């Protein structure tokens, strides 16, 4: 579905990404982890077409999208809801940009996501966790089949965060969308993903790709299992090596 082939990018003298090649299959949940400043957000900007790579190509469903906009849907670290739009209007924004709005579907999805009571509220009336939920639904409702999520939960506290991860899986598992997910948390990456891509820094190269074996649907108990801890250790070893 998404394929990056030998993508490199520098800012001036500084090379940020070097020969990144990666693959996200249809319906797959892939996490990117790597140190701060390694170029994860830059990689998203390249896929989104905001930046052009110095070398390499980007393909989506076999079609080249290098330097092209509008093929992915996006969820940033800050919810980035529009304060003058109600929740339902915010959630419809992604569809609006691509042409067609489906009000009923949006309403049903908000209901299902536990946001039924705030459909007509304004963003400032919601807590941080609720806003992120709305931002996720907005991304999910956008017609694009690939979602890029850039540290969506890192601004939340620990309790809300774990809740959000479980919530995200429960919603997402019913949909076909593929997800590329940036995080700093190994637990988060392991709990959510099918595959974890570990980046190095200066310049960023792919250090390792780890296939996560846990079956879905996953629940909170997984986080405490022996197996989970072993995988966590394995990843830490890769990062420290």
């Amino acid at each position, binding site marked *: 579905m998404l394929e990056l082939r030998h993508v490199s990018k520098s800012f001036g003298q500084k090379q940020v990404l070097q020969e990144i090649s990666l693959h996200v299959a249809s319906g797959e949940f892939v996490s990117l982890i790597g140190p701060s400043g390694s170029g994860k957000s830059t990689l998203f900007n390249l896929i989104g077409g905001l930046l052009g790579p110095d070398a390499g190509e980007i393909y989506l469903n076999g079609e080249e999208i290098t330097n092209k906009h509008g093929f992915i849907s996006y969820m940033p670290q800050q919810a*980035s809801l529009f304060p003058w739009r109600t929740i339902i209007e915010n959630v419809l924004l992604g569809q609006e940009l691509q042409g067609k709005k489906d009000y009923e579907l949006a309403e049903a999805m908000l209901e299902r996501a536990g946001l039924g009571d705030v459909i007509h509220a304004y963003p400032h009336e919601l807590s941080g966790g609720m806003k992120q939920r709305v931002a996720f639904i907005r991304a999910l409702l956008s017609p694009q089949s690939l979602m890029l999520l850039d540290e969506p939960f890192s601004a939340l506290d620990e309790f809300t965060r774990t809740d959000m991860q479980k919530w995200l899986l429960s919603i997402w598992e019913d949909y076909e969308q593929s997800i590329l997910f940036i995080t700093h948390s190994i637990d988060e990456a392991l709990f959510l993903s099918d595959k974890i891509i570990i980046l190095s820094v200066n310049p960023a190269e792919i250090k390792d790709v780890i296939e996560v074996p846990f079956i879905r649907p996953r629940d909170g108990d997984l986080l405490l299992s022996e197996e989970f801890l072993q995988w966590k250790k394995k990843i830490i070893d890769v990062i420290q090596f």
Partner: protein
Amino acid sequence: MKTSLLKKVWRPSLAILLFIGLWEVATRLFSIEEWLLPSPSDIVMEARNVIPTFLPHLGSTVTLSVSGFLIGTTVGLGVATILHLMPRVRETFFPFIIISQNMPIIVLAPLLVIWFGFNALPKLIIITLACFFPIAVSALGGFTQTNRELVHYMKMMGANKSQLFWKLELPHAVPSIFSGLKIAGTYSVMAAVVSEWLGAQKGIGVFMTLAASSYRTSRVFVAIIVAMVISLAFYGLILLLEKFFIRWQQKGENV
């Protein structure tokens, strides 16, 4: 809600009452001539006599300021949009817009009369010039201060330039535009009165110059107070519109 309004209002009200009282006492105590400085009671009496003949003047000034304000708003928003969407044009012309504001519009008035005659056109131009600037500057400020994260989100989602403007930059600038509108609203009444000094059949400005030339100072004061009331009413109206348009805003937050 009501009590808090009362709390806010009683101090300034008391100050005004005190001021009027002092004024009244001073004019009597020093027996100041009415043509020099009429006492508040003189003004009230004059107002009672003159209001019926005054109404047509008032209507004419209100019409003039509202039309000038609407034209100025349209031009101001239009110019701000063009300057915002075309950075080259902005770099070229923005300095002239700033310079134009350092020229008192009053000095333009005789020229405008020479060019366009004694009709409504030069008056409307003056009001438009007065209103245009605060609106253009506040709108432009609002556009350029659009939240970076929201812009990034829109671009990542593939929004084109026009979607970015209509869905994000314009609504984002609304609070800022309203602060420009409030200033322009008060300017428009002042500019209308001044433009009527150039010569007109009707209007508060005309009424004022007539009264002044015959030393009916109380009448001049009546005109001034009426102009102030219109100005305030205008301001209040814009405030109401603002409340309606930015009802989404968090209370006490000024974005």
